[in-house]
């Protein structure tokens, strides 16, 4: 389930990659990504805490999408 304001979509390939998962979990300052051996999980309760720092987009270019739900009609 998305948050009220923010949704985060991770490319399925990247989501299964433990190395990418670890990187995402490390860079996110608000713990939206939880890394495990099987890949990355998006922590729904933290989605609205996203500070739009783009650090996840930098470590996984083109593979992570931040959706601002308040920009949608």
């Amino acid at each position: 389930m998305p948050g009220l304001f923010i949704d985060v979509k991770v490319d399925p390939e990247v989501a299964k990659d433990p190395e990418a998962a670890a990187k995402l979990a490390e860079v996110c300052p608000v713990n939206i990504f939880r890394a495990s051996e099987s890949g990355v999980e998006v922590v729904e309760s933290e989605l609205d805490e996203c500070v739009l720092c783009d650090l996840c987009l930098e470590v996984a270019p083109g593979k992570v999408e931040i959706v601002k739900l308040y920009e949608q009609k």
Partner: protein
Amino acid sequence: MSILITKDTRFIVQGITGREAVNLTRENLDYGSQIVGGVTPGRAGRDVYGVPVYDCVRDVVKAHGQIDGSIVSVPPRFTQDAIFEALENGIQLIVVVTENVPRREVAQAVELAKLRGARIIGPNCLGMISPGEAKMGGIGGPAANTRQAYSKGEIGVMSRSGGMTTEIASTLTNAGMGQSTAVSIGGDAIIGSSYAELMPLFEADPETKAIAIYSEPGGRMEAELADWIRENDSRLPVVAFMAGRFMDEMKGMRFGHAGTIVEGVEDTTAEKIKRMESAGISVAERIEEIPELLRKRLAEVS
């Protein structure tokens, strides 16, 4: 000209990988500040927006040579040690962002700074900015917002409240009055640099023509400023905005900053206004009156 900081000031960020520090590092870089390195113990080898991270200040100095300043943005219980580390590695200007640091730890850091001939700004502050040159700290927020609020000019700004530093600057900018340097000095009971301690710097800066300050109940800082102005026959007109007038009715209750509590008569807004006015400081009741009062005072001296 400006005081404390120019575009040539080279500084570091201690605690650079923290949530707040990441933010202010990006904002400072975007505004044109020179951040040469960052420190977070155990995180050497990383980088934050291209700024290399080291385990300790000594390693930054080894890699980049002498450093002018440091922003300390670490949790309260590590703050004193971080300041000591900066001081003992020869850093002369330290901006302490962290709040909730007990005053004993602050006083000890300030005393060591004095022994080392260094200056501390804060704690519990947003740092400072010389508009058009550079900024050091979270003051003004993202670069685009900072440029909107701060403009280059002749007014020196000092404020015990970080937020009100920008509110005052923004009001001045909207009224067509720029700032030479704006300093968020911090809201705690003991801080590195008070109004009176920064006045000599503004006094010596030919570009600064007048001063605007934010003031609130608690402490003796306004009295100290009034004394300084009187004793040094300052050339600079000063306009103060006084907040927290409602607190005069509520002795012993702490509102806002750690330093903001009315304990004695001298702490009340009424007494502070009296003291400041007797030293020739104009006191505004609303922020939007500041530009007009400054214009009036500037017209008198010219």
